[in-house]
């Protein structure tokens, strides 16, 4: 039947998807082995732009091979924005971290997916890399996923995120891949209340993002389909037909927040 109140159209939401995986994923019904396939999917779901990372950069060492492959795969496609998967250099000191971030920025990459598995957010381990990323306001997704986009948070993770966020208030940190269905770690809401620079992506989260948007601010939610690991129709319809948020709030979540963070990268 016809809906009682018209919801915004998908085009009005101007979607900038913060999480799409490119590369062949064996065993999935559908994946995006190249830019053309990915762009077709984006057209189908009215996604205007997408942050893209390469599948193997998340799951196979050395990560830089996947990151380089990503740049070749999306070369010439302005709607696809690169995101590198990185983790802290083993060697202590700021120099190795600076070299890594410089390489990223020189390649035109303004977003990093920081793999929090297997190296958890141990402040002493990530400290130097976070300091350098903060100098440039690089947008950081704290990736707690496993081989897929599903992951979970432990108490120690929440503590580590808090410590790092407070030590680097100029660094935008997006908690990512904490698949929670209806809920995630109960300390996430209080943690976001207590910090200025922590955001949450909704990859894998059907309901909890709504609580953050209503109780704190829609500015703290970054939209993600997590495609192809999640059917894009699920999370896109979830936000489009959310009855309790105004158009401005939905537009912020769907892309405005991410675009604003990207503009601040220096």
């Amino acid at each position, binding site marked *: *039947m*016809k*809906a*009682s*109140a*018209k*919801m*915004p*159209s*998908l*085009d*009005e939401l101007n979607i900038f998807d913060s999480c799409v995986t490119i590369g062949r994923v064996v065993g*999935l*019904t*559908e*994946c995006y082995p190249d830019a053309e396939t990915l762009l077709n*999917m984006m057209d*189908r*779901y*009215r996604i205007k732009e997408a942050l893209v990372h390469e599948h193997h950069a998340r799951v196979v060492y050395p990560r830089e091979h996947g990151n380089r492959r990503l740049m070749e795969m999306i070369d010439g496609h302005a709607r696809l924005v690169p995101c590198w998967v990185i983790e802290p250099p083993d060697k202590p000191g700021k120099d190795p971290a600076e070299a890594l971030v410089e390489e990223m920025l020189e390649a035109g990459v303004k977003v990093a997916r920081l793999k929090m598995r297997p190296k958890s957010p141990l402040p002493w381990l990530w400290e130097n890399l976070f300091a350098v990323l903060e100098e440039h306001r690089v947008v950081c997704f704290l990736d707690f996923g496993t081989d897929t986009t599903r992951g979970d948070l432990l108490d120690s993770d929440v503590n580590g995120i808090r410590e790092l966020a407070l030590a680097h208030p100029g660094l935008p940190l997006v908690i990512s891949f904490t698949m929670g*269905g*209806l*809920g995630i770690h109960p300390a996430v809401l209080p943690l976001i209340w207590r910090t200025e620079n922590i955001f949450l992506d909704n990859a*894998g989260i*059907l*309901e909890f993002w*709504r609580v953050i948007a209503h109780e704190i601010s829609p500015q703290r939610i970054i939209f993600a389909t997590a*495609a*192809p*690991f*999640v*059917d*894009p*129709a*699920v*999370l*896109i*319809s*979830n936000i*489009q*037909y*959310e*009855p309790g948020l105004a158009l401005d709030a939905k537009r912020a979540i769907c892309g405005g927040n991410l675009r604003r963070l990207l503009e601040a990268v220096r």
Partner: protein
Amino acid sequence: MSEILEHWLEGKGLPDTLVIDGHIHIGEWPHNTTFRSADEAILKSQQLMDIHGIDAICALSGGYIFGNPDYRLGNDFLLKVWKGIPDRLIPFMSVNPNDTHRNIIDELDRMYSSGVRCIKLINAYQNNYPGVGPNLMAVYEYADSHRMLVLNHSWMDTDLAIIAQRFSGTDFICGHLRSGRIVKEMPNVYVNTWGFHSAGVLEKYISEIGYGKFVLGSDGFLNCLSVGIGPIVFARITDHEKRMILGITLARLLDKIGALPSSIKKKYPDFLCGG
């Protein structure tokens, strides 16, 4: 382009389409995410249906179905909500198979005499009571002799094959998206569409076992109702197939047992006949 998809993309819901959500939880809940009173459930569930363009919901009793609470309290709540919106809610009563045989039959009698014609099971969350254990076999027997519909969160393939064959006059709905030989081959087995699946899975399953086996189920109001509808609407299937999955197939199953609200029959008389 699909007319149904076009409307959905434009934010208009699903005009001219019969939509019945076949998997909704209502009532007190362990996660504290659903309505806190029957009055609130009556009011808000209608609002949510209206916003999404849903004609009616199959409502399963709430959190009393998990573990060892008294499931009759959940059924009481369900009856109260049903009384408030009889045209838009189809009640699915619950039992806990770990209870005594006598209590289970008494509850089936109580609910049947109140007009309830559908049963929701979730033995996987009730100490994993076997799908073909004696008390569940008694429930299927009851359903079969009283022409009731049975939905379960999940069945093992081996159990499903046994019960679907033995109670061939009863329709069985698997509560979450799946495929497989049993669902394809048994004419009285159907599947709700919700699962946190990856891209393309729903379409793959539809191509494997046929669109006629799937009925919309969002797992609302725990989920937003749109997460169940979205994958069907976006699927690369025909509008006819979408309409069948969104409501017609389930309407026919409910109509067979006298559980389809008359208002739906009146509103969509053409949808209930034909193939």
